[in-house]
């Protein structure tokens, strides 16, 4: 028990140390640090939280959240095309994205049910596969078969959506009610933090939803499936259906998460935006002390904070240390991959060991019976 607690806190503590060393090296102004971390927390938390429910259902980290992200991006493209701005635009985008996300989630869930025990790698490949269709839709069908209104978003060839779109719905949630906090600290240092109340309320809403969901019947069933599929199906639960539902929920949440993320950034990288959503979200969750089989809301929030603190500090620390900003850039990419890799290895190693001890015990029993 004690040991598992140690490993649970090891990763966050390790990251805290890395961040502390980074800050000591880079010595960034505190105003920059607080402002930036606040912005990034608001931007990314929702996507990270979208990963929790499939973990509950025992499907591991849903590397397929780009599916939801793509649904959200399609919604945003339509809204930008139709010229709907501000908060209504974001709501319309979410309304367009939701059915697409549900469909994609249904599809993903079915595919993953056929790949039991390999869900994570399959969800990852699934994201690439759907990206192909997404590209076909936006690059070749949009503007040629689907009519468009706004010429600005179409490539010069006359069809297909541009690589980068400036979103008219930018800050649609953030601007509704924004409280800037600013007060001087010691020396010339200042504390700066923007608090976009509405966006934060949305994040709080999904937290409450997740807590509430765990207590519903479906939530309980999901946990049962996550613990042992055989026992759950013997108890009369439709494991297949429940697993699909968990992926659908995650995909829809990822769709909203991506919309929140992009309204905060303000521009849409049409063909590359969704790509890193999964990596960064997964890395954040794992940094927060979650594992592939256990994740909570505090894991997600703490992880988002630590991971993005590292992200802000590392390029500057790298520059201070080596004089080359690129090294810091590569180093943070390396750290994000390394975190995920190490967490996956640790989890698989533990499972492997448990399985082999269970195997040995079973063999011993057989021998004793003889």
């Amino acid at each position, binding site marked *: 028990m004690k040991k598992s607690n140690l490993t649970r806190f090891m990763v966050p503590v390790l990251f805290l140390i890395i961040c502390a060393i980074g800050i000591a090296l880079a010595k960034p102004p505190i105003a920059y640090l607080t402002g930036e971390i606040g912005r990034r927390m608001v931007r990314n938390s929702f996507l990270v939280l979208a990963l929790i429910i499939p973990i509950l259902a025992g499907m591991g980290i849903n590397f397929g959240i780009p599916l939801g992200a793509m649904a959200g991006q399609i919604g945003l493209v339509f809204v930008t095309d139709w010229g709907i701005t501000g908060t209504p635009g974001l709501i319309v985008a979410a309304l367009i994205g939701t059915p697409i996300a549900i469909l994609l989630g249904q599809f993903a869930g079915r595919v993953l049910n056929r790949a039991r025990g390999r869900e*994570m790698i399959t969800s990852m490949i699934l994201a*690439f596969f759907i990206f192909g269709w997404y590209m076909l839709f936006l690059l070749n069908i949009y503007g040629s078969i689907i009519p468009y209104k706004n010429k600005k978003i179409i490539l010069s060839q006359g069809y297909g959506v541009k690589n980068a779109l400036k979103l008219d719905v930018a800050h649609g949630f953030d601007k509704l009610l924004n409280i800037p906090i600013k007060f001087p600290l010691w020396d010339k240092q200042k504390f700066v933090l923007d608090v976009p109340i509405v966006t934060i309320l949305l994040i709080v809403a999904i937290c409450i939803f997740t807590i509430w969901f765990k207590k519903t019947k479906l939530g309980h069933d999901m946990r049962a499936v996550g613990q042992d599929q055989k026992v759950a199906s013997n108890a009369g639960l439709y494991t297949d259906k429940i697993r699909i539902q968990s992926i659908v929920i995650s995909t829809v949440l990822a769709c909203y998460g991506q919309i929140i993320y992009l309204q905060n950034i303000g521009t849409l990288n049409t063909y590359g935006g969704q790509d890193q959503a999964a990596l960064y979200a997964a890395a954040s969750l794992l940094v927060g002390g979650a594992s592939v089989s256990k994740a909570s809301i505090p894991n997600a929030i703490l992880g988002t904070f630590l991971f993005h603190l590292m992200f802000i500090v590392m390029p500057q620390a790298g520059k201070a240390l080596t004089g*080359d900003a690129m090294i810091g850039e590569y180093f943070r990419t390396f750290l994000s991959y390394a975190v*995920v890799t190490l967490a*996956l*290895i640790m989890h698989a190693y533990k499972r492997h060991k448990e399985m082999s001890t269970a195997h040995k015990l079973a063999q011993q029993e057989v021998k004793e019976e003889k």
Partner: protein
Amino acid sequence: MQTDFIKKIGWPRIIIALFLIALFIVAPAAGVSVAKSLEDVIGRFGMFSILVLSMIPMIQSGCGLNFGVPIGVIAGILGGVTSIEFGLKGFLGILVAMVLGIIFACIFGLVYGIILNKIKGDEMLIATYVGYSFVAFMSIAWVILPYKNPVSLMSYGGTGLRQQIPVANYWMQSITHADGTRESVGLITNFLAINIGDNLRIPVGMLLLFAIMAALVWAFFKTKMGSSMIAVGSNPEYAKAAGININKLRLVSVVMSTALAAIGIIVYQQSYGYIQLYIAPLAFTFQTVAAILIGGASINKANIVHVIIGTILYQGILTMTPSVINGALKVDVSEVIRLIVTNGMILYALTRRSKA
């Protein structure tokens, strides 16, 4: 009987093969030269076949699809860059690059294999991420490593190695075509090359090298060690009972796969003309995996016929579809086709219920 035949070959392969044949029939109508296309397909077969071959040992030993191809690719790149650093040119340069690449591959493969032995059953996901991490790690290394040859270094005062190192002066030779145009061609590519007609040039050297490597792999699986490796992959319980050291054989298979990938990437580079660094090694992962799957391999079974058929079909689709569709409709869909075919094929393999 007939259904047996279809089952044996598998629907995806039949559909893809028919599609490829259809493309070749339609090609002239779309204004695409069939001879030129054939040359492209054969050339790309030569470039990719050894990389695809590198999948076999790991699949056979039960480690699954080698999503960690970038590790072998990086070993090959290190060998290549080091060989160029010594200023070695011609076949000697390529040979030294390969030998060094194999040495690096053995070191990396050993570590990679030890990791994979600790996490049996989750190889594929973790291999993917080990690959990603290693590529990111080596990106830092490419900036720091003390290479001095100006060909390899970033120009204009940048630090570290270039994104693309040209190998034209080292591993390639200049040939003059009949129409007077000059072109740099890789030494292995050009070795014993035969011209058929005006447009079709067969890179016999590359095909020969592939044949040799394939024969070596085939011969290896005929040895005692090779057959124990197959036993480990197809029936671990039996292998254990027979007293086979499972971990050791899996380790050997990982090292073999990594070393083959290192050789494969050097063959690719001498034909392509550049050594690509930084994130480029990642581009090979899904392509090689998809190729062997299209050839008929599954997660736990693969042979040389799968490599040959798979590489031809996969590279055929990849070269032909864009050029035909582009010729006929003036639409560029190469990236879309690549994504859908590659990942669709991997998905198909992952979701197929294993027969065991």
